[in-house]
C-alpha cells in the first residue's frame, strides 16, 4: 500500500508535502477509490497525504450566493443535510444513491469528482447544478466549473499529486427551478447506474426558462444535453416539449455497447425514457 501516511494540519502544509515529493505523494480524502487503485496497482504515488484532519473541510455552508461543500464532506452528509435538501434536492437524492451506507459514510463528493467517472451520481447532479470546484495549488486557488475538470474516463485535469480541490460550490436553486433525479441500475444498492439523469428546470409564466439536463454514463465524461436544453428554452411547458427534448437528448448521447451496462441501442433508448421522466418531475416541482 503506502510507505508513509501523513496528516497535514493545513492546506498549505498539504501542498508543501505534495511539492516536496514531486509526484510521489497524493491526496487522500475518504480513500474509497484510492485504496482500490493502490490495490490494483493503478496509482503509483507511494505517500498518502490525508486531509481529513484539516479544520473546516467537512462543512456544508450557505454564503450569500452559493452553497459551499468542503473537501471532506461525505455523500452521507449531503444526503442528510437539511440545507441541501431544501436548496438542491437533486444533489441530496443523487448522493443518497452512491454505493451503500458504508461507502456514503466515508466517500467524499470531491473525491468522487476527482475520480473522474462519468457514472458518478454526485458528479452528474453537480453538473446539472453548474457547480464549480476550488482548485488550490501553491500558486493560489481558482474556481473552475466541475464540468471542465473532466478529461476522460477516470481522468480529470486536477493533478492530485500537486493540487487539492478544497471545496465545491453552486448557486442554490430557487423555487421556480424544479429538479429531479432519475436512475436506472441493475439492482437497488451497491452499484453504479446504467444511466442517471439530473434535471433542473426553471419555469416562468408557464414557459421554460433555463433548463439543465445532465447525465451519465453516456460518454467518457458527464454529459449535458445542451441541444435538448436549448430546445426547451422559451417553450410552453408540457408533455410535447418534454417529449421532443427527450428525443433530442437521446440523439445527442452516444453510449457504446457495454458488457456490464448493456447495448448501445438500449442505453440510448433509456436516455429518452429517463430524460422524459426527469423533466416531467422537475417541471411539476417547479413553482
Amino acid at each position, binding site marked *: 500500500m503506502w510507505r508513509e501516511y501523513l496528516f497535514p494540519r493545513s492546506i498549505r502544509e498539504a501542498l508543501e508535502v505534495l511539492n516536496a515529493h514531486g509526484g510521489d505523494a497524493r491526496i487522500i480524502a475518504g480513500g474509497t477509490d484510492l485504496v482500490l487503485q493502490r490495490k490494483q496497482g493503478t496509482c503509483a504515488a507511494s505517500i498518502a497525504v490525508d486531509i481529513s484532519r484539516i479544520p473546516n473541510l467537512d462543512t456544508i455552508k450557505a454564503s450569500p450566493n452559493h452553497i459551499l461543500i468542503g473537501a471532506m464532506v461525505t455523500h452521507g452528509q449531503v444526503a442528510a443535510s437539511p440545507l441541501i435538501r431544501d436548496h438542491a434536492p437533486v444533489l441530496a437524492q443523487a448522493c443518497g444513491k452512491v454505493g451503500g451506507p458504508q461507502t456514503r459514510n466515508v466517500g467524499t463528493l470531491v473525491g468522487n469528482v476527482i475520480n473522474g467517472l462519468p457514472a458518478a451520481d454526485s458528479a452528474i447532479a453537480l453538473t446539472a447544478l453548474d457547480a464549480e470546484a476550488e482548485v488550490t495549488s501553491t500558486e493560489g486557488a481558482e474556481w473552475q466549473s466541475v464540468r471542465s475538470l473532466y478529461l476522460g474516463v477516470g481522468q480529470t485535469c486536477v493533478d492530485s499529486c500537486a493540487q487539492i480541490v478544497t471545496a465545491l460550490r453552486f448557486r442554490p436553486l430557487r423555487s421556480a427551478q424544479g429538479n429531479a433525479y432519475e436512475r436506472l441500475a441493475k*439492482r437497488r444498492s451497491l452499484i453504479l447506474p446504467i444511466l442517471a439523469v439530473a434535471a433542473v428546470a426553471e419555469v416562468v409564466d408557464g414557459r421554460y426558462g433555463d433548463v439543465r439536463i445532465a447525465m451519465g454514463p453516456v460518454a467518457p465524461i458527464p454529459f449535458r444535453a445542451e441541444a435538448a436544453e436549448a430546445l426547451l428554452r422559451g417553450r410552453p411547458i408540457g408533455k410535447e416539449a418534454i417529449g421532443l427534448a427527450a428525443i433530442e437528448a437521446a440523439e445527442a448521447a452516444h453510449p457504446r455497447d457495454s458488457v*456490464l451496462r448493456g447495448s448501445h441501442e438500449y442505453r440510448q433508448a433509456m436516455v429518452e425514457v429517463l430524460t422524459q421522466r426527469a423533466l416531467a418531475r422537475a417541471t411539476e416541482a417547479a413553482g
Partner: protein
Amino acid sequence: MNASVVGRSVQRVDIRTKVQGQRKYPQDFHMEGMLHAAVVWSAHPHARITSIDTSRAEACAGVVKVLTHLDVPVNEYGINILDQQVLCEDRVRWLGDRVAVVVAETEAVAREAAAVVSVEYDPLPILDDPRESMKPGSPLVHENRESNVLVHYPIRAGDLDAGFSKADVIVEGYYLTPHVEHAYLQPEAGLGYIDDEGRVTVICATQWAYDDVHQIAHALDLPEDRVREIVPAIGGAFGGREDVSLQILVALGAFHTRRPVKMVWTREESFRGHGKRHPFFMRYKHGATRDGTLVALEAEIVADAGAYASTSTVVISNAVTFAAGPYVVPNARIDGYAVYTNNAVTMAMRGFGATQMPVGYECQMDKLAEALGMDPVELRLKNLYEEGSIAVTGNAVTFGIGAKEPLREAALAAGWREEAGHWKAPEVEPALQPHLRRGLGVACGYKNVGYSMGFEDRSEAIVELRLREDGAIASALVRIAASEVGQGVSTVLAQIAAETLGIPFERVRMSLVDTARAPDAGSSSASRHTYMSGNAVFMACQDALQARDDTLREETGRMHAQGQAVFRGRTARATTPLDPETGQCEPHIAYTFATQIALVEVDTETGEVEILTMWDSTNSGRAINPAMVFGQVAGGIHMGVGYALTERFIQEEGRIKTRGFGEYYIPTVLDMPRELVHVGVEVPNPTGPYGATGIGETTTLPTAPAILNAIHNAIGKWVYRLPADSETVWRALHERRRPA
C-alpha cells in the same frame, strides 16, 4: 415426557458464536511457524505450457519453496473423473488452472514472488460455446478424447410420434440459462499442517471432508489414514465447495515444508478458481390434448461442461430425469449432452441440473395453458405427480409425493379459487401508474433427495451417552462428519437426537467435522443430510438406547453407552444408472416439491421488474425446525431472484468479465420481494426421520420460472433467457432482437 423437540424452532446450536464473531472459519486460524502460499494461475484459457521458470521467485527473500508439477507425487485429481492436474504440467484449459504455488514467510512475499514465476505459453484456439465445440471437427479440449462431448444421456419413453399425433396443441421453446457464481461470502481458505500423529491435516471449508481426504491422499500418494481434514465452520457453500479448491495445494505445501501452510484466496481468485453452475441451452416441444393432458415431450439439453468434467456427467444425467418436470408424460424423447469448452469448469450448484430445467418446463406449461385457454394452476394439477405416478424414466415415484399440495396451498394463498374442480386465477389489481404492468406467475419445481443413479449413498453416525447414577441420560454427543454449511444440519441432527433419546435439546452436543474423530456422513449436497444423516442419527440413537439398556441390565456400573449406525439409501430405494439407450432406470431415492407464485410489476419503458409478493409452499415432509425451513425458503428465493433478474457470470473467449462483487450482482436486501408469504406443507416421507425430507435445493427451483411466467402475464411477451434483466425484458416488450 418432554415436549417434542422436532417441530420446534429451537435455537441453532452454532448461532451464539456466530453473532459474536467467535466462530472461526479457515482464514481465522494461525499456527506457530506458519507459512503462506499463493497460486500462480494460468494466464490463458487454453494453451500449451512450453516452460516454467521458478528461479526468480525462488530467489525472493522470504520464499521457502516454489511448487510445480514436479513436486506432486500423483498429479491428478477430480471429484468424479481424474482429468485435472493439481499443478499443470504441459497444458492449461481454463483460467482457473494452477501452474505453481509459492510458499513464503508472509502472504505479501508469496504473492509478489508468484508474480515473477515465469511461464511461457503457446496459445491454443479458445472454445467458448458448447453448441460449437460439440460439432465434429472442433478442436479438442482433451486430446485423449474423440470429441468434446463428455457424455450423452438419452431417455426414450413410449412412442413420441404417436404422442404428438394425439396432441391438439403443440408448443415449442428455446430456453437459455447462464453461468452462475455461488458467491458465498467466505472466500476459499485453508491451512495445511502435520498433526501430532504425523498426518497431513487440512483445515478447510468443504462439503465432503472424507472425499477431500481421498483426493489429497491420492495426489500425495499416502494411505488415507495418514491424511486428515477438519472443518471448523463454512461461510456458505451451495455446491461450490463440493470439488476440492485449495485443499491439495495446502496439503502439498505442508507435505514438502513440514510446516503449517496457509492459503487465503481473494474474491477475484475465488471467482476464478472454483466452478460455476452449468449454462443450459434447452430446446423444448410439448404436445397436449384439448383437456390439458400432456401427451408428448421432446427436449434437447446442451450443457457447457467447461474445461474439466467435475460432476458434469451426474448433473446432466440428473437434468434429463427432471426434463419433463413433476408431470406425467407417457411419450418422451429427451437428450442431454455435457460438452467441454474452455469456459469455467461447471460444477454442482444448488439444484444440480434440476435448477435449469424448470425454466424450460414451467415456461412450457404456461405456453400450453395459454394455447389451451386453461388456468395455469388447473393445467398443472391435471398432470402433476401423485404417489405412484410413472416418470419418463419408467419408475414409479413414491415416498410422500407431495407435489399437488404445495401448488394448492400456494395458489389459494395467492388468491386462486377452486370451484367445481376448476381453478380460477385472481384479478390482478392494476399498477398505480400507466407505464407499470402487473402479472402473476406460477411455477412448480422438484428435486431428488440423496444421491442418484446407483451412486451409493450412506451416512454414518456415532452417539455417545453419558449416564447419571439413575440411568438417565446426562448428555449425548453425536459424532458425524456432516458439514454445517449454514443450512442448519448440526441443529437438525441435534433435534433428531434429542427427540429420539427423549432428552432436552440442550443436553445434546454435536461433534466437529474431523475425519479423525467423526464418521463419514457423505456430502452436504443433494438436499440429503436431514434425510440420510437424520436417519443415521435416529438409528444410532436407538442403538445407543439399546446399549444403555444393556448396560443398566448388566449392572456393570458403567456410566457410558454408545450407539452406532449406518443408513444406506438403498435400504429405502436402490437406485440404478440410466439405461444407455432408453434412460429407463430407478433414478432417485426420494423427491421433494415446491411451488412458488410471483406477483411482479414491470416497468414497460425500462424493462425493470420488481417483485411485489412471492408466495412459497415447500413440502418439507416434516419441518424439524420451522424457522430454519423458512430461512432455507427465503435463501432459496434470494438465489432464484438473482438467477431470474440480476446474476450472470460473464466470460468472453474464456476471459472473465465479472471479476468480483463489483461486477456480479447478487440481490441486496432492497432487491428481494417486498413481501414473502410462506405456507409450509408437510406430506411426510415415510422413510425419512419423523417424516422429514430435504428442502435445501427445492426452495430455489420454482423462483425464476415463476418470475418469468409472471413477466409474461404482465406484458404478454415471453422472456426465455436468464437473467431477465431490464434490457432483456425491454427487448421482449419491443420485439427487438439482440444484436449478434
